[in-house]
């Protein structure tokens, strides 16, 4: 049985990979929040360049994530069209001017303002996307739980998370076995069966799956108890990498970017959008 990777961690040795998981998490959050706080296309464009640069030095292979990227692009296009259909005049309202380009029917007039607004939105997605891929591609799954705990998420919640990663493939394998054994006895969960039957048949798989999962849970809980889990309010993490000079530098850089974005947003432009029309 092959391992199903929930996180497509790529084991490479780059300056980014060598950072501690905690650093990666903090930087990811800082940059994502920075991008969320603004629609300023100049800022977003810079952020995009920055994240593409980071992706470059971490040797992120976009080809590996082709499917994810295609999904995202399709989603963005869909979003782009829907945006126009539901609020064709939002750009005009936002920027206060009206430069008409093309009239579809009455009420559906394409304006430069609308196009610009939607462009800002797309750039915003594009600035975040490589960061997300980068985060999941460079953080080791086992480091992730310890990093969460590092930003003060309670450790029991973190363990639940790492156990989910640990046992997900097992439960998936159980599911496949159960499902195949049932198909051998004539249960049809494929598209040939009627929807009602498919739902009923899938529910039949749940019963054995729940029972075998409950057995598993009892075993894991005992195994953890027997090794002193939950004894203290704190615990340490074997997979945590201590913070090095580069970690502090990376965090400092991201904090600076974050502050710069806030300054732009609240002190310089004083608005969500950069308005080229006035």
């Amino acid at each position, binding site marked *: *049985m*092959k*391992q199903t990777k929930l996180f497509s961690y790529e084991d490479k040795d780059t300056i980014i990979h060598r950072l501690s998981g905690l650093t990666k998490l903090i930087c990811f959050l800082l940059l994502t929040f920075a991008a969320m706080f603004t629609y300023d296309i100049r800022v977003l464009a810079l952020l995009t360049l920055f994240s593409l640069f980071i992706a470059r030095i971490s040797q992120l292979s976009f080809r590996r994530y082709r499917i994810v990227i295609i999904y995202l692009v399709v989603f963005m296009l869909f979003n782009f069209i829907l945006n126009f259909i539901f609020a064709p005049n939002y750009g005009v309202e936002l920027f206060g001017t009206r430069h008409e380009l093309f009239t579809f029917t009455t009420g559906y007039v394409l304006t430069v303002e609308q196009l610009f607004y939607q462009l800002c939105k797309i750039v915003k997605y594009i600035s975040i996307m490589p960061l997300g891929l980068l985060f999941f591609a460079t953080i080791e*799954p*086992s480091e992730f739980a310890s990093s969460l705990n590092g930003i003060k998420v309670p450790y029991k919640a973190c363990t639940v998370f*790492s*156990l989910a*990663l*640990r046992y997900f*493939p*097992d439960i998936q394998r*159980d599911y496949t*076995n*159960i499902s*195949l*054994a*049932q*198909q*051998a*006895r*004539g*249960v*049809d969960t494929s598209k040939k069966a009627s929807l009602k039957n498919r739902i009923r048949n899938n529910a*039949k*798989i749940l*019963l*054995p799956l729940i*029972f*075998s999962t409950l*057995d*598993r849970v009892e*075993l*894991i*809980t*005992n*195994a*953890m*108890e*027997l*090794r*002193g*889990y*939950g*004894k*203290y309010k*704190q*615990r*340490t*993490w*074997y*997979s*945590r990498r*201590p913070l090095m000079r580069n970690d502090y530098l990376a965090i400092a850089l991201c904090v600076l970017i974050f502050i710069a974005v806030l300054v732009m947003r609240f002190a310089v432009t004083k608005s969500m959008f950069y308005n080229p029309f006035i």
Partner: protein
Amino acid sequence: MKEPIIEFKDFTFRYEAQKQPTLKHIDLTINKGEKVLIVGLSGSGKSTIGNCLNGLIPFVYGGDMSGSLKIKGRETRELSIPELSKTVGTVLQDADGQFVGLNVGEDIAFSLENDNVELSAMKKAVTKMAKLVDMEAYLEQSPLELSGGQKQRVALAGVLVDDVDILLFDEPLANLDPATGKTAIDLIDQIQKTTGSTVIIIEHRLEDVLYRPVDRIILIDEGRVVADAAPDQLLASDILIQKGIREPLYLSACKFAGINIKEQMHPSVITALQLSVSDKDRLRRWAIAHQVNPALHLKELLKGEKLHFSYDGKKTIINDVTFMIKSGEMLAIIGKNGAGKSTLAKLLVGFEKEDQGDILLGGRSIKEDSIFERGQKIGIVLQNPNQMICNTMIFDEVAYGLRNAKIDEKEVKERVYEALKICGLYEFRNWPISALSYGQKKRVTIASILVMKPQIMILDEPTAGQDYRHYTEIMDFLEKLNKGGQTIVMITHDMHLMLEYCDRCLTLVDGQIYFEGMPSKVLVDEKITLKANLKKTSLYDLALMIDMEPEAFTQSYINAERSMRHETD
């Protein structure tokens, strides 16, 4: 100087949900540095003793407790699981399920993490323990990349980091292939010698544990200690057999030959066994008297031709496999974990599709048949009945496949009743499945396949986790089915099963058939045992001891054992 480390005094325990106590008036002392084997049937209370030692009782499984249990002089009920875990390290039966880390290092460190040990000290301790169990090259590996034996080593390292005084092994051999089991027993022995800890092994595979010496064997039956003696003394008595524990094969052979086993003969270890000249003579005569080779002239039923299979297109799991299954035979598929046994079975029932090759049933290719169409011809019983049972009532569960095939309800009823009768479940036909024991559930799953009247029935590890009594029950039942004409294929690690019940065996090594033929040949051939991670049985050594050809001697044993079994039927 004997210093007691574990003391049970008039100790009784009843689980909350049960009416009767599981442990009754246990008086038992285990001394520091001793190595003790606890044997008993499933449900005898032997695992409950283990749970009392590590604190799962009373802190996780509650109930009534009376009498006293002291570990290092302190009552366990006044301690806690974390406190006890510093003294008693438990290695559970299921090495995979107890692997809580995402990689080896993390799993070994788990207990240290909970103790807030600082990172660099933790790394040092983990490396040291990994070295001790010979796993230091695997620290970064995920559990999915490890074998069962390796996971067990990791589990052992994970309790050794706590510097425990007592090591408790709950059925350490249950999920391991024969050769790995042997290594595990060696490892336990070696760890005890280096650490000087007290070792308690709970296991019903007596002969395999005795491969390395133990100080005492404690026999538990119906919640009581019925024997507590040195191995030689215990094996010279009949009490193990009476209580349903399998004795070592070589002793069975000696007893078949009418040799009276005495303590002075050192019956606990084959290499130390003392047989007199007349005993040897007796054994030889017995073996010669049973030397008939069973003639098997069975027709070919299924043929696999040049099968190839790979999950990912890179690593070949089944490599050019050609074999046949004969009509009416009992066939064993053996080999180490990952050799492709289960995958081969999956190809036969259509769960996976071969990349190349063909499967012919009765001369017709079944390659294009759907899973359900194949399921009616070749049925598979999974190892864990909980993965198969999907109805709440016994009748419905057995009727399930027939109803899905839209068979007339009247016929369904007839066929279900017939299957239930064969499986000895007819009286329970209106019961909910939840009221059944594990062994009975297993039989329900067999009935639910049998009812489809498949031409071939495949069973994945039919006796895994079963003690000797239940093993015999299941296997005698399968043998009866087989005698009624049912072709049976079993995937197994259990060499006793193969020797005693199967007509032929397929040995897989790295996705290829390494040997196909009589079971008596497999376990005496050093090349095969080495390649397939099997181990030679003690019959081999016994045969050498009396200057006989091991293969012929093994065949004599098989013949004698089978005719004995059929007499008692």
